[in-house]
């Protein structure tokens, strides 16, 4: 079967030596470069498919065009952290704070979904509120049954975390202004109660008797950028 691949890490592709590859200078997660820019994406696809016209290989070409940098509009003002405890007799628990954040962000999320015509939520099959309570129980030292019978705990936790992050990221996109992907990541991990809850989950999951849960805590929960203080 004739194949051509888009490569994001040139050194890895050079080591494997596939028959046809186009290395692109884009961030991980964006192999076509620029979301919402059909012309840019079309140029990348044409360049990749163009390698089928070569008569011999292996071929590892470098794509010459960088994706334009995304400049955040909030560098001076800071992002809107929606949580407010004004009027509360005492602060809510951390999961309670996350539920308050979700409640506050809901309208921005709805705006983003309406604007984009889609949401990427739904892989877990439970609401973000229920997923927050599920994670909150783990952080509190319990081992609750997963919210779906077909999911082992590690996968249920992983999907819950991804679903909550997606809700926050999509809600951010509904707000005015522009944030770079790096800025959105910083906001989530440094400034939201949800980010704090997931960091606490990492500590709780690391103590689990279930090796799959411990593996999840070590490798698939907090991004390397956040662990190194760059998010």
């Amino acid at each position, binding site marked *: *079967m*004739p*194949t*051509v*691949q*888009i*490569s994001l*890490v*040139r*050194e*890895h592709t050079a*080591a*494997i*030596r596939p*028959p046809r590859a186009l290395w692109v200078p884009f*961030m*991980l*997660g964006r*192999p*076509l470069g620029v*979301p*919402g820019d*059909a012309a840019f*994406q*079309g140029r990348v*696809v*044409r360049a*990749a*498919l*163009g390698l*089928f016209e070569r*008569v011999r*290989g*292996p071929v590892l070409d470098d794509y010459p065009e960088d994706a334009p940098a995304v400049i955040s509009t909030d560098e001076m003002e800071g992002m809107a952290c929606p949580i407010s405890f004004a009027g509360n007799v005492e602060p809510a628990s951390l999961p309670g704070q996350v539920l308050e954040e979700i409640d506050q962000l809901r309208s921005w999320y709805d705006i983003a979904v309406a604007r*984009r*015509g*889609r*949401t*990427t939520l*739904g*892989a877990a099959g439970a609401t973000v509120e229920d997923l927050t309570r599920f994670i909150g129980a783990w952080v509190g030292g319990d081992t609750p049954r997963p919210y779906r019978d*077909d*999911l*082992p705990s*590690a*996968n249920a936790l*992983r*999907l819950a975390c*991804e679903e909550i992050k*997606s809700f926050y*990221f*999509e809600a951010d*996109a509904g707000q005015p202004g522009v944030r770079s*992907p790096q800025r959105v990541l910083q906001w989530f991990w440094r400034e939201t109660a949800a980010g704090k809850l997931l960091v606490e989950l990492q500590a709780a999951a690391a103590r689990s008797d279930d090796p*799959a849960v411990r*593996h999840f805590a070590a490798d*698939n929960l*907090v991004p*390397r950028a956040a662990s190194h203080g*760059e998010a």
Partner: protein
Amino acid sequence: MVRLADLPEWERAHMLEKIPALPDFGLSPWVSGGPLSTRRVALVTSAGLHRRGDRPFGLGDARDDYRVIPGDIDAADLVMSQLSVNFDRTGFHQDLNVVFPIDRLHELAADGTIGSVADFHYAFMGAGSPVTRMEAKGREVARMLKQDGVDAVLLTPV
């Protein structure tokens, strides 16, 4: 962006540490075909995409499975359950095509650049190693691509 020289030292080291564990297939099989304007093109992605109601990718054995993506799927019906947390997802949230350029393929078919777009596309969950664990499923997908008349595959990472 993913120029190793541009990455922080800890991320550069992580990427370089993977290289010795990558498989050496000992060859680069070169399969030719007709002109691009006659080719039937499919997408195979390692992004862990699937239909919203389909089984999420998971740990253990489930990570090696693939999911079928019908060529006429609505972008609103696709979700992602990749294991890795170390890549940007906001682009995918904004536009499916930045990961899975299905609309771009249909445009290229419409203007005659390619012959046609496959009826079915496939998604794997690429995180984890060794990648050779996917060989059996990869061969299975290749057989189905041939049944679909596909003679050009665009592989997209995440």
